[in-house]
């Protein structure tokens, strides 16, 4: 059997290729990006014509995947946890329509917020949509889970979620490859009502979905990813997904004799959990993310038989570690060395020579003469403009929010109302906000810092490259107030003057600050050699 050392994300990608997908749809987002990149770089995927170009955002990605499923083929759609918020409309409704060809949505959560704005737990979204969720605990399971999820999706005619977290996505282990399935033939949906969510159809679809729930729980009950580790005593551990690894690390290291039930599929299978917990006096619940199932099992009346993140046995927030589990299991920690006081923090920074640097320098100078200095910004490398030496921005909330928050603040009377957004974030979710500003003639200055790539996630293609000027014109921004600048030291004075002038303008201005990402430039140079 072919064995490879793969990131969890790559194991999922390989699993999807082998499971016979015809397309992958995604917008880059840490920690999910590597799934799609692996498929884009796969020779096998190219040979089988698996479609893998980046989508403009997670919603367009999800809908395209649903369309491919409608046509009868298998599709994979990948995103980071907050991306599912963007795709949520399509996602929730696709559970009501159901699918035709298999549809698997991979959502990569980021507990501890290594590269994110929150640590929301996508398993809640799984419950919310009433669809099956598979939560693999290691790289091999991640590979196997994709095959399994596509089979489950085609058997239940529902989208299936594969939930992973940063640690699994970005950790390598040896993965054995299984069999390959051929892609589906084109076989468009024949049910003429299923995908038309008019109220009468939607009501029927919702009932159909609810009717499936008992069956879904019975699949979870028999899931190949469940595991029971025998042990003695009246204390046991219920571990979900990757939390199982940390439990087992401590149990094997310290030779503990504790029964463990591992669950990796939802909705929660009742009989197996009842049987396991009934004979125990105390159950530790270990789950990565929110205490979703701890809350359920403890119940509103706080059944103290169950402990976990809610009562402080495990930390309430952040990623779990083997040390958290050791502490929860009463292992006395040997004394460890401490970090010497001399060690300074080393936060990330904008690269040397990055265009955002010159833009922020000009922006700081241009806004310095105004009484109110507020810059609404967004999600990308340029968010690092929040840190010294720039300290240039005041907000970073969600994709595209810079444009619309600037508009709202302008409506409230703030002048100047300035937004800084990257090119890829602008096409992801900024265009519609700009249209709002144009329609309302809002006095805002929208700076699109265009480095021609989706830089923070590693330089993926940006869907608006070479189209931004036309997009802004098309949305209705007055051409006289669309200014293109090149953020370079030598243009500093001119750029400051242009910014100042547009800050004074009582209408919508767009500044296109265009210069290639230095990382991409270096990579291109290497490739040319």
């Amino acid at each position, binding site marked *: 059997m072919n064995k490879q050392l793969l990131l969890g994300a790559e194991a999922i990608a390989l699993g999807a290729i082998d499971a016979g997908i015809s397309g992958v749809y995604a917008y880059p987002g*840490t920690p999910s990006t590597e799934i799609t990149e692996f498929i884009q770089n796969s020779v096998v995927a190219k040979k089988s014509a698996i479609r893998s170009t980046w989508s403009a955002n997670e919603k367009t990605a999800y809908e395209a995947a649903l369309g491919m499923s409608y046509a009868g083929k298998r599709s994979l759609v990948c995103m980071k946890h907050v991306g599912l918020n963007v795709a949520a409309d399509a996602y929730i409704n696709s559970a009501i329509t159901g699918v035709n060809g298999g549809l698997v949505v991979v959502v990569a959560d980021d507990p501890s917020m290594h590269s994110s704005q929150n640590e929301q737990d996508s398993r809640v979204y799984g419950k919310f949509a009433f669809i099956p969720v598979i939560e693999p605990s290691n790289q091999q399971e991640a590979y196997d889970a994709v095959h399994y999820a596509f089979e489950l999706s085609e058997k239940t005619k529902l989208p299936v979620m594969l939930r992973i977290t940063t640690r699994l996505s970005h950790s390598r282990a040896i993965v054995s490859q299984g069999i390959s399935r051929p892609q589906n033939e084109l076989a468009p949906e024949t049910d003429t009502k299923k995908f038309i969510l008019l109220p009468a159809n939607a009501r029927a679809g919702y009932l159909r979905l609810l009717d499936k729930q008992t069956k879904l729980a019975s699949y979870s009950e028999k899931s190949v990813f469940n595991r029971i580790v025998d042990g003695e005593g009246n204390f046991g551990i219920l571990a979900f997904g990757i939390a199982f690894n940390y439990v087992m690390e401590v149990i094997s290291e310290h030779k503990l004799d504790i029964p463990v039930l591992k669950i990796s599929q939802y909705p929660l299978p009742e009989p197996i959990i009842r049987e396991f917990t009934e004979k125990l006096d105390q159950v530790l619940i270990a789950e990565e993310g929110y205490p979703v199932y701890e809350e359920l099992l403890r119940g509103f009346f706080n059944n103290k038989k169950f402990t976990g993140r809610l009562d402080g046995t495990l930390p309430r927030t952040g990623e779990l570690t*083997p*040390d958290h589990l050791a502490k929860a299991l009463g292992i006395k920690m040997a004394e*460890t060395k401490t970090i010497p006081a001399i*060690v300074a*923090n080393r936060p*990330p920074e904008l690269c040397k020579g990055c265009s955002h640097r010159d833009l922020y320098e000009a922006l700081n100078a241009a806004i310095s003469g105004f009484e109110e200095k507020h810059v609404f910004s967004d999600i990308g490398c340029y968010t690092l403009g929040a840190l010294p030496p720039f300290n240039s921005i005041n907000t970073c909330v969600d994709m595209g929010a810079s444009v619309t928050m600037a508009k709202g603040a302008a409506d409230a009377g703030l002048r100047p109302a300035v937004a800084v957004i990257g090119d890829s974030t602008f096409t992801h979710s900024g265009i519609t906000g700009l249209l709002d500003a144009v329609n309302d003639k809002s006095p805002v200055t929208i700076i699109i810092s265009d480095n021609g790539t989706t830089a923070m996630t590693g330089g993926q293609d940006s869907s608006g490259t070479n189209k931004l000027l036309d997009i802004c014109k098309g949305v209705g921004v007055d051409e006289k107030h669309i200014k293109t600048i090149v953020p370079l030291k030598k243009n500093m004075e001119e750029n400051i003057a242009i910014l100042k002038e547009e800050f004074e303008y009582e209408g919508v201005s767009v500044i296109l600050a265009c210069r290639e990402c230095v990382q991409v430039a270096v990579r291109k140079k290497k490739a040319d050699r």
Partner: protein
Amino acid sequence: MNKNIILAGVGGQGILTIAAIIDLAAMGEGLKVKQAEVHGMSQRGGAVQSHLRISDSEIFSDLIPLGKADLILSVEPMESLRYLPYLSSGGTIVTAIQPFDNIANYPNLDNILNTIKNSGRSILIDAVALAGEAGNLKSSNMVLLGAASPYLGIEKEKIEKSIEQLFSRKGQETIDINLRAFKLGLKASENKPVNI
């Protein structure tokens, strides 16, 4: 056989190349491997680390527990100290002595180096000088891998084979430079008085 290694450095310094070579060598030995990496925001010049675990039995956690690392292999001196809580009581630090100074408050280098020497068994390597000697400053990672190789639990010939394998697409000259760098690092490490 059971080795826990923390690889440390600054985003962009290439600790993952070192990891990839150890991974290859370990897989060649039929060992199990788990290697957790940092992707995303910290890669932009921030502190990065990789937890690399090698074993002949099942490895559960992708993360090394505190106090269980046999080796901290760092391509930057201050970064070697950041992960001290992971170092086991008998563990070893192998680090380059060249600072990567991209912050305003980088501490005094002598203080850093002295702190390392007082933090356990440590091997400080002038990786840049040896990489220059090997023929390319970029090979300093292989110097450090060489210096750390006595502590990896894998025969050095197997690691050299993995270097050849990893750089095979880049031509014989690149392979030779990196092998030279590896050997120079190993020699420096063997000849160096170890601070205990």
